[in-house]
Structure formats: C-alpha cells, structure tokens
C-alpha cells in the first residue's frame, strides 16, 4: 500500500461535525430534505454522551430508548454518510457555499462492513485495560465493542494497548480484523457546516479538597450515570472502593460550575436536574438508601422540571443548602463531608458511604483552531459564539457555519434537540440561497 | 396460561383513546401511580366509536366491568363526542338491563390527556365497587 497515495476527495452538501444528539438531529433533518450529509464523529460510536446515560429527566424515559432509534435512523439514512474515529483537521472557506475540509480517519483495524459484532475477538483478547466508556469503573479488552448499543456496533482494536498477539484475528469468523489499516486523509468539499461538537465534563481533579482520584468512593456523576444505565458495569450500584452496596449517598452540586476559583463562572444548567434524576433512580434501585443533595440553588427551570424536583422531595431525597467545603476519607472508605448548613448557619460534618460529584459542563475546545482563514469566534466562556443569538441562534461568526447543541453553551437534551432543529433550518435557508 | 392465576381482582376492560386518554394512562405508569393489574386497555381513536356489542362481548367473556375513558370536550374529532359516547353508554346499559346485568358494570368518565390521577382513582374505585358487588 502506498502511503503517499493522494488523498481522496469527497463531495457533500453539508458537513456535520459531531454525532451526538444535536448533530444527529441536524443531520436527519437535512437528509430528509434531500441534502447529502457527511457526519464525522471522533469517537468510535455516534450517539454522543446521551447514549451513555441511564434515563432522562423529567420523564424518566430511558436514554437508550430515545437515542438508539435516532442513531439507527441516522445510520441507515441513504443521504447520510458516517465517518467514526475521524477528526476534522482543517477547514478553509473558499467562498460562499464552498468549504474545503481536511479530515483524518484513524484506523479501527476492523473493517466495519464485515464485522458482525459477534464479540469472539473480545473473548480471545488477553489484554484488559480501563474501559473509558464505563468511565474507568471496570476493564475492557484491547479488541472490543465500545458498548452494547454502540452504532456501529462493531469491534475496534485499541492499538495503544494491543500486544499484537493476533488472537483476535485467528478467531474472527469474517476475517474483518486487519492490522494493515492506516490513517486515511480525505478532502471534503461541502457547502455548509454544522458544528455540534458538544461539551466536556469538568475534571474534579482540579478540586483536590474533594479527594476525587484519591478516594475511590468519590465518583463523578457520569460514573454514577453508568452505574444506573442498562449497560452498567456492575450488577447493581456498588461502591468502587470495595463493592459495598451503598446506603447513604451524597451529591455535591456545582462541582466545577459557578465557581470562579476553577475558572468556570457560569451555571452548567443540567447538573441539578440530572442529580435529582439519579437520586430518584437510586431510590428505586436501592430502596433502603438515603440520598442527600448538597446544593446552592436548585435550577429546575424547564418544562416539568420543578414538578420533578418537588417529586424528589416528596420521595424523601434530602436537600441541604450549602456547598461542600472538603471531603475526607475514613478508614472504612466512608467519607466525611464538611459543609455549612446555610439554613442553620452552622458548619457541619456528615458521613456518607459514597459521594457523587455533580460535575459541570465545559466547552469542548479545539474546533475553533481548525478554521483556517476565517475566525470562528468564541464567547467569554469559550463556547462557540452565537453571532445573532436572538434572531438566528444557530449562526456563528462565519457565514455558512452553524452551531448546534452544547457547542454553544450548556443545555439540556430537549434544548439540544431544538437547537439541532434550528441549525438544520438555518442551514437549509443558507443552501437555498445558493440555488436562487 | 395454565393454572395459577396471580391476579384475582375484578377484571376491568378500559376503552381508551389514542390521543387523549391513552396518554394519560401512559403517564400514570410514568408517575408510578399504581392501580390493579387486572385493568386492561384497548385503545381506539375516539370513545364514541365503542360499539355496544364489544362491551357486551367483554362482559359475557368474563370481564367484570368495562370503563370508557372518554375524550370529553378535549376530543380532537369534535364536540359531539361527549354526547355520542353518552348515547353509546345509555344504549348499552339498556341492553345490559335487558340481559339482566348490573348496568353499573359499565362506567364512563372523561379522562383528559394529563388526567392520570383521576384515571387511577376511577379504576380503583370502580374495582372496589365491582369487588363488593360480586361478593354480595
């Protein structure tokens, strides 16, 4: 195979960057109107963060029940082409309705079209490493299917951790594993771009006094989300420190949000609600457990949210107003939370056997650097700036580039979906203008 | 299923409507508002479409009661729904009387699309009534 082979050129109407729920919504809408869409996703599966969630507030529908059919609709839409494991490297605007984009597809070492997802390679692989899709709670193999409802639900080889023993290849019934695969570059010519690159979660290592990373029973909310999801790492909710069934769980809200001392002054908008949701789910999963939520203000503002919050109170979830100051660990793995009970006005200490840090939403940096000749402006918090927020919320500083979902700021799932719809609408009118 | 009948309460057949009362019954589940598992629903477009013979069939086949979760004034097919559903009920009740059945085994109430609690209350009290009347 010649490495110097000239890169392939592809042509589409629209490039959607990011295959999460917002990008997916935009892609489907555009494809339904007949536009050819290329969806690039840097991860191995589309579906974004939502596909990894347990249930969604305030209806408690399972997240998978909403994402999986959507993802499957995207996957089989004749007007949508999906590139997973693919990064956007460079975007150059060549003129109105003309963009040239360099994308780079990392080798998966598995031919997607041949893999049946039988998992024999997974069984054969001797290597066990930390599973990032379970947020480090459990291991996975170096030959693996990301998670059971991934799309495409096919294997991939984690080459960083692979010993190249070849066991996977030998058992593969369809010979789809191929270590000769290499990176592939493409030049994509499109007329418009939708940026739906989503968000990052706050890394609680930045708040050492909460002990995340040091105390094993201090989790992030995403780790708890995984524990509650149908494709969960354990058979039920357990303490990662020693496998104990927790019976007294604390939630620390505003971890990394509304906190200038960690550089994020804004509210993440979703943490209150997902914590309340998890509390309700935990009450179902562990009927004997006490749940305490340490909060500053409960931001239950959306349709049905406040009712959901009141419902949690009625169910017996304890709400304590006060930001947790520090967490210390006891010998038995239990944790002592020090906080001021603001209603009582006194400093208190409380013991819990598991602590969930409700981590905030941060911008997914990087996409703005990809633009070559025009600047994709960011807002003061490094989310993508909406240049005409009130009349055309999907517009960015570059004409022809639109933003969908949490790439422009924290928002919940319904808002992301509406924003995805708005981005596709704006893209449609932009494309129509060309044909006029 | 052979043998072991787990649910032995009064069996109630509910005629719900696709757009109005069925969503309310769905929401009752969503909110985990419990009601007897011997309540079964058949969803139809509009409550005024229930034929008396279906009701009689159900009662004759072993249902203890039939509950029509009517659209009421929310009916997307027009205002005459309430009146027409009422006619169906009165006709059927007459037929039930003729056959020697207790007409109270048929019940109707308007269930709006978010009337989950009223629905649960209705079927619970209906079930209670049926239990008492079958014992007496």
């Amino acid at each position, binding site marked *: *195979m010649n490495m110097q082979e000239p890169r392939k050129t592809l042509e589409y109407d629209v490039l959607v960057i990011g295959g999460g729920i917002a990008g997916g919504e935009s892609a489907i809408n555009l494809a339904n109107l007949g536009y050819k869409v290329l969806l690039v996703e840097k991860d191995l599966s589309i579906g974004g963060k939502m596909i990894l969630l347990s249930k969604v507030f305030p209806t408690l529908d399972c997240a998978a029940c909403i994402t999986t059919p959507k993802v499957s609709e995207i996957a089989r839409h004749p007007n949508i082409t999906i590139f997973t494991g693919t990064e956007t490297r460079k975007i150059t605007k060549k003129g109105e309705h003309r963009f040239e984009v360099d994308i780079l597809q990392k080798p998966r070492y598995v031919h997607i079209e041949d893999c049946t997802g039988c998992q024999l390679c997974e*069984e054969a692989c*001797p*290597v*066990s*490493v930390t599973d990032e899709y379970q947020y480090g*709670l*459990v*291991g*996975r*193999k170096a030959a693996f299917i990301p998670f059971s409802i991934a799309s495409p639900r096919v294997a991939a080889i984690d*080459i*960083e*951790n*692979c*010993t*190249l*023993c*070849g066991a*996977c*290849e*030998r058992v*593969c019934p369809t*010979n789809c*594993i*191929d*270590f*000769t695969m290499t990176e592939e570059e493409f030049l994509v010519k499109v007329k418009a771009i939708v940026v739906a690159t989503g968000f990052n979660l706050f890394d609680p290592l930045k708040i050492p006094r909460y002990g995340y990373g040091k105390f*094993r029973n201090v989790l992030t909310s995403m780790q708890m989300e995984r524990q509650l999801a149908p494709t969960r*790492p*354990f*058979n039920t909710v*357990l*303490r*990662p*420190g*020693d*496998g*104990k*069934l927790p019976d007294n769980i604390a939630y620390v809200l505003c971890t990394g949000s509304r906190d200038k001392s960690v550089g994020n002054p804004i509210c993440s908008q979703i943490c209150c609600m997902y914590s309340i949701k998890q509390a309700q789910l935990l009450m179902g999963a562990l009927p*004997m457990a006490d749940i305490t939520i340490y909060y500053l203000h409960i931001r239950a503002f959306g349709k049905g949210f406040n009712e959901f919050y009141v419902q949690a109170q009625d169910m017996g979830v304890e709400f304590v107003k006060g930001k947790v100051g520090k967490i210390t660990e006891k010998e038995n*793995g239990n944790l002592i939370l020090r906080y001021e009970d603001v209603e009582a006005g006194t400093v208190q200490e409380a013991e819990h056997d598991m602590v969930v840090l409700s981590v905030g939403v941060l911008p997914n940096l990087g996409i703005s650097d990809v633009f070559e000749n025009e600047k994709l402006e960011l807002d003061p918090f490094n989310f993508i700036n909406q240049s005409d927020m009130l009349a055309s919320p999907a517009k960015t500083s570059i004409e022809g580039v639109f933003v969908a979902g949490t790439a422009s700021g924290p928002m919940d799932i319904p808002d992301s979906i509406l924003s995805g719809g708005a981005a596709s609408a704006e893209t449609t009118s932009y494309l129509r203008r060309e044909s006029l | 299923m052979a043998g072991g009948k787990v649910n032995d309460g009064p069996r109630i057949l509910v005629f719900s409507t696709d757009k109005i009362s069925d969503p309310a019954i769905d929401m009752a589940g969503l909110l985990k508002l419990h009601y007897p598992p011997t309540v079964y629903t058949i969803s139809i477009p509009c409550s005024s479409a229930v034929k008396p013979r279906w009701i009689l069939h159900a009662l004759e086949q072993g249902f203890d009661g039939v509950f029509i979760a009517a659209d009421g004034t929310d009916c997307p097919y027009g205002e005459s729904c309430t009146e027409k559903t009422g006619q169906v009920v009165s006709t059927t009740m007459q037929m039930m009387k003729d056959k020697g059945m207790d007409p109270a085994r048929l019940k109707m109430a308007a269930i709006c699309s978010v009337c989950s609690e009223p629905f649960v209350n209705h079927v619970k009290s209906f079930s209670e009534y049926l239990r008492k009347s079958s014992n007496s």
Partner: protein
Amino acid sequence: MEVEKGKTAKYLKEKHEIPKQVTEHLKYFTKTKKMLLNALREEDKTIPQLAEELGLPAQEVMFQLMSLLKYGFVETGEMDDMDEYFYYKLKSNGKNKS
C-alpha cells in the same frame, strides 16, 4: 504488499514496537486474574474477604473482579448477612446455562 488475511498482526509487529508497560500490564492482569480465580475456587467470597486474603487493596480487587465478571469468568452470588456485600463465585463456564 498484500498481507494474508488473519495474519496481519505479525505484519504490524515488525513495524510497531510494543511499549513495555503494555506487556507488563498484561502480565499483571494475568497474574491477578489467576489469583482471584484460585481464591474463588475454594468458596464464594466477598470483595473485602478477597482483598484480605490476597493482600490487595479492596478497590483493586473490585476493579479486577468486575472486569472478570464482565468477561464472563465470575458471577454474582448471594448477599452477605449484613446486606452489605455480594458474594462472587466462579461461573461454571456456561455448562449449567439454563
């Protein structure tokens, strides 16, 4: 160069050096796996019991054992008397699959 299908790992092995920690990690995993499975062979145990017996931190036992559970070597058993910990047992390799 055309590489024979099913034997491509060898091809890459020639070009790509395997980092030392990858092989060490594999050794470590194989070792703890053996230890855990041996310990469970005697009887069903909880994680604190395994940790004490093997002299490993409980969180490490938890992580490895849950991985083994995921890979199908181990399954969850009863709860202990205090309703705190589950017992884990060896999976009979699908023989008893009902």
